[in-house]
C-alpha cells in the first residue's frame, strides 16, 4: 500500500533522488559506535538536533495556552501546568530540554574542538556553530522571562543590566531589548515573546540548514 503510493508519486515527480541525496550516505567506520564504542562522541551533534526538535514541538504546543501579557502570562502558565492534561509533562519537556540542549551543544563543541574538526576546510562551519550557540543562548534568555514569575522577572532584570554594560551604546541596547528605558514590563514581555517564538527560531532554522548542508558538502572529518 505505502509502496504503491510512493511509486505513484515517484513515477510522476521522481522523488527518489531528492531523499537519496539527503539520507542515503555511508556512515564512515570511525564515526559508527557499532565499530568503535568511543565513536559515541559523534552523536552529540545529532542529539543536539534531536533535543531541538523536541523544543520546537513542545514550544509549539505550549503556545496553544500561553499568553504573552503581564496580566495573564503567569495565570496561563499556571493553568496549562495544573489544569490541562499532561501540561506538566509538556512544559517539563520544554523546561528541561532547554537546559539539555545547552549541555548537548557544549559536548558537541568539545568533541569538535578536541578532535580539531574545526580546521580547514571546516572553519566556516565552526563559525556557524558558534552563531548557533549564541542563538540558543538568546532563546534561553528570552524564554526564561515568559512564565512571568519572580525568578523570571529578576533574572531578566540582571540580564538587561548586563546588556546595558556594553560600552557606549549600552543604554540603547537595553531599551531595544526591554522596549522601555526603565520599565521591565508589558512591552518587555511581548518583545521577548516575539524574539523567542519568531525571530530566533527563524535564525536558528537558517543556520541549522547551513550547518547541515556544509556537513554533507564537506563530509565528516577523518579519523584521528
Amino acid at each position, binding site marked *: 500500500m505505502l509502496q504503491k503510493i510512493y511509486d505513484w508519486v515517484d513515477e510522476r515527480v521522481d522523488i527518489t533522488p531528492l531523499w537519496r541525496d539527503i539520507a542515503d550516505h555511508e556512515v564512515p567506520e570511525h564515526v559508527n559506535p557499532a565499530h568503535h564504542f568511543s565513536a559515541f562522541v559523534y552523536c552529540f551533534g545529532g542529539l543536539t538536533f534531536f533535543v531541538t526538535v523536541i523544543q520546537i514541538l513542545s514550544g509549539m*504546543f505550549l503556545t496553544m495556552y500561553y499568553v504573552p501579557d503581564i496580566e*495573564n502570562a503567569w*495565570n*496561563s502558565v499556571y*493553568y496549562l501546568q495544573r*489544569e490541562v492534561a*499532561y*501540561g506538566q*509533562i*509538556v512544559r517539563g519537556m520544554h523546561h528541561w530540554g532547554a537546559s539539555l540542549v545547552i549541555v548537548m551543544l557544549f559536548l558537541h563543541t568539545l568533541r569538535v574542538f578536541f578532535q580539531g574538526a574545526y580546521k580547514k576546510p571546516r572553519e566556516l562551519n565552526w563559525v556557524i556553530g558558534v552563531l548557533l550557540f549564541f542563538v540558543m543562548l538568546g532563546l534561553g534568555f528570552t524564554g526564561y522571562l515568559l512564565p512571568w514569575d519572580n525568578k523570571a522577572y529578576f533574572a531578566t532584570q540582571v540580564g538587561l543590566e548586563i546588556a546595558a554594560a556594553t560600552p557606549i551604546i549600552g543604554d540603547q541596547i537595553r531599551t531595544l531589548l526591554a522596549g522601555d528605558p526603565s520599565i521591565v514590563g508589558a512591552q518587555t514581555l511581548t518583545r521577548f515573546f516575539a524574539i523567542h517564538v519568531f525571530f530566533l527560531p527563524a535564525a536558528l532554522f537558517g543556520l541549522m540548514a547551513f550547518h547541515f548542508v556544509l556537513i554533507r558538502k564537506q563530509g565528516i572529518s577523518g579519523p584521528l
Partner: protein
Amino acid sequence: MSDKKRVSRRQFLNYTLTGVGGFMAAGMLAPMVRFAIDPVLKPSGAGGLVSVASVEELTNEPQRFEWTVDQVDGWYESEVQRTAWVYRNDNDEIVALSPICTHLGCTVDYGSNEEYPDQFYCPCHAGRYTKDGVNVPGTPPTAPLPPIEYEVREGMLYLGEAQSEGGV
C-alpha cells in the same frame, strides 16, 4: 534466503529501527497531542441556577430577562450576561427560551418585526420562530430555540443553561 518466510538481516534491522523510532516518536508526541486536545475532553462545568425574577412578573407575553453568571474561561474569570425569553403559555406552564438563533447564532427578538408581532424574529437572515420557539418552516433556522433550564423556588424564577439538543 531460499525460504521466502525468512526475514533478512536488512529487513529485521529495518523493522526494529522503525519500531524503536516509532515508539520514541509516539512517546514524545502522545503527551503533546493529549495536551492539545484537552479542551475537547474536558467535562463542561454545568453552571448553577440563578434567581432572575419573581414568577409573578411572568405574563402570557414573552419577556426578556437578563442575569449574569460567573464564567471560568481557562485562566480568565469574568461575569457574563445571559438572556432568556420567558412567559406562561396557555396551560399556565413556564416557557424559558434561549435567544440564540439556531441558524447562525445571532440574537433573536420577540415581536420586533411589525409583520410578525407574535413571533421571534432574527434580524440577521429573517429567521422566525413561533411563540413556543418552533422555527417557522421556510425561514433559515432548522431547529427550535433551545429551552433554558429553569426552576421555581419560593416564588422566584431560577434560570440556568440553555439545553442544546445536539449542536449550537
